[in-house]
């Protein structure tokens, strides 16, 4: 009998060691996060120092009533800094900057003389809405990472390109729970975490790093390690990182400037999905509306119900064409 027990025990051990070898890192969640942030801070410091002698650039701000020329610092000043010169109110509502009419993150340094305008979520264009949806996906990733106890293995997988038409923003996460179906209180607790993060009013920082540094940062995450070389191949060996508080993730961007721009929000559902490699992934889905937009709770309930359905969105070129058509019709109506 004892012998049998030992056998069982060894089988158990073998199984454990197998799971250990699958994830390369041996750091705990908190340690991994700390290390990632340390590397981020060091790289940020290095990039700031590498700017060297400060050059001035002329930034032409086109406001609704006025045009202002601002003398800013090349490769240091961001659209957010420009907004600070104009008014405090603008720094709070501006979601996305348009630099030479192209979307530009609020916290991304300006690289030369340019024309600057701001879009808000109450007067958005299509890229602002998409940036908002993408930011919500990023926050949802942060929530999913923090929501579980230390003994649950959590690895963020990815979030696809934002599709507002699908009715929910999503974040794909690997959990080592074989068959987890969240209860309503669990979803509510995650929504509460989401709201807590929003209320901290964190800026959404952006940093472009080299491929090898990104791989070092995401040592513990075997999905990201596979994705990073692919992304870097199409992007001159560089990776764009976004940081909210201490949560760092990869995304092409752009994102909105601050988490306080997100208003009413719900984590609606978690669905189990299968990938090509047979991994068990969970798809977290949520819905949110910008702060300052008040909505009837019945109407919001409809959106919540819709966000609960499994969102099967994957990137399709025709969707972008549709958006373009929509843009044209809207322009024609106006």
């Amino acid at each position, binding site marked *: 009998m004892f012998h049998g027990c030992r056998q069982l025990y060894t089988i158990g051990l073998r199984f454990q060691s197998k799971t250990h070898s699958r994830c390369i890192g041996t750091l705990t969640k908190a340690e991994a996060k700390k290390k990632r942030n340390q590397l981020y801070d060091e790289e940020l410091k290095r990039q700031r120092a590498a700017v060297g002698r400060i050059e001035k650039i002329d930034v032409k701000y086109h406001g609704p009533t006025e045009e202002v020329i601002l003398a800013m610092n090349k490769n240091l000043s961001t659209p957010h800094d420009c907004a600070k010169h104009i008014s405090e109110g603008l720094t709070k509502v501006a979601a996305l900057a348009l630099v030479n009419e192209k979307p530009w993150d609020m916290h991304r340094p300006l690289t030369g003389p340019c024309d600057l305008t701001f879009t808000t979520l109450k007067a*958005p264009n*299509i890229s602002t809405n998409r940036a908002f949806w993408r930011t919500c996906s990023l926050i949802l990733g942060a929530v999913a990472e923090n929501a579980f106890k230390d003994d649950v293995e959590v690895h963020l997988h990815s979030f696809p390109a934002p599709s507002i*038409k699908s*009715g929910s923003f999503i974040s794909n996460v690997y959990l080592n729970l074989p068959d987890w179906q969240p209860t309503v209180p669990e979803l509510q607790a995650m929504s509460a975490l989401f709201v807590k993060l929003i209320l901290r009013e964190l800026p959404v920082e952006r940093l472009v790093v080299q491929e090898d540094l990104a791989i070092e940062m995401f040592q513990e995450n075997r999905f990201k390690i596979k994705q990073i070389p692919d992304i870097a191949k199409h992007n001159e060996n560089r990776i764009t990182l976004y940081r909210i508080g201490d949560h760092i993730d990869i995304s092409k961007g752009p994102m909105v400037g601050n988490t306080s721009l997100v208003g009413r929000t719900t984590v609606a559902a978690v669905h189990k999905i299968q990938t090509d490699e047979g991994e068990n992934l969970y798809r977290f889905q949520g819905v949110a509306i910008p702060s300052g*937009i008040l909505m009837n709770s019945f109407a919001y309930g409809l*959106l919540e119900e*819709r966000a609960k359905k499994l969102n099967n969105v994957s990137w399709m070129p025709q969707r972008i064409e549709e958006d373009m058509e929509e843009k044209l019709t809207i322009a024609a109506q106006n």
Partner: protein
Amino acid sequence: MNQANVTHLVSKLKFNIRPTPRRLKNKDGPPGRVLKIQKTLTALFEYERIELFYNRADEVRGYAERLISEAIRRGPEDHEMMDLANFWIIRKEFVHKLFKVYVPRYQDYSIAYTKLHKAPRLYPGIYYKRAVLELRGNPYPSIEQRNAHSNVLLHNLLLSEARKEYRMEKYKEIAESMNEREVTSQ
């Protein structure tokens, strides 16, 4: 029940007149109140949009509605109607305007002929609320301004997509029920 049909004796207004009239306080008493209303009515028929104190605007609104509806019902040949118009409208040219411009304009209206907007008041200034009173169908640009971005606001996009999806589901249900009916009839 031998009750007279009284529906055509009184004009049916699309505006609820207050059960108690406002006194429109002034030193001449009731005749002063009437003069005030006459002046405001004349100004309204002249300019078609006027800004004034809310109380006076709301009071005059009922008189304007009643006068226009009577003019539509009776026409310019009716002597009593002409007396009424001459009494309330101080200047003769606007009596002509009432019958020649406003009667054709409002003949087929199924809603009120006037519109009242609340207007902001100066601070610090006179305490009384202000309002803009206008005749509908006037040539000026609208006071109410529509949000130019309402098509692209995020919650509107979400709601319109939800509506589309709901409609598609309904169509599918109808199609299925029709198929079933065909199967059973065969």
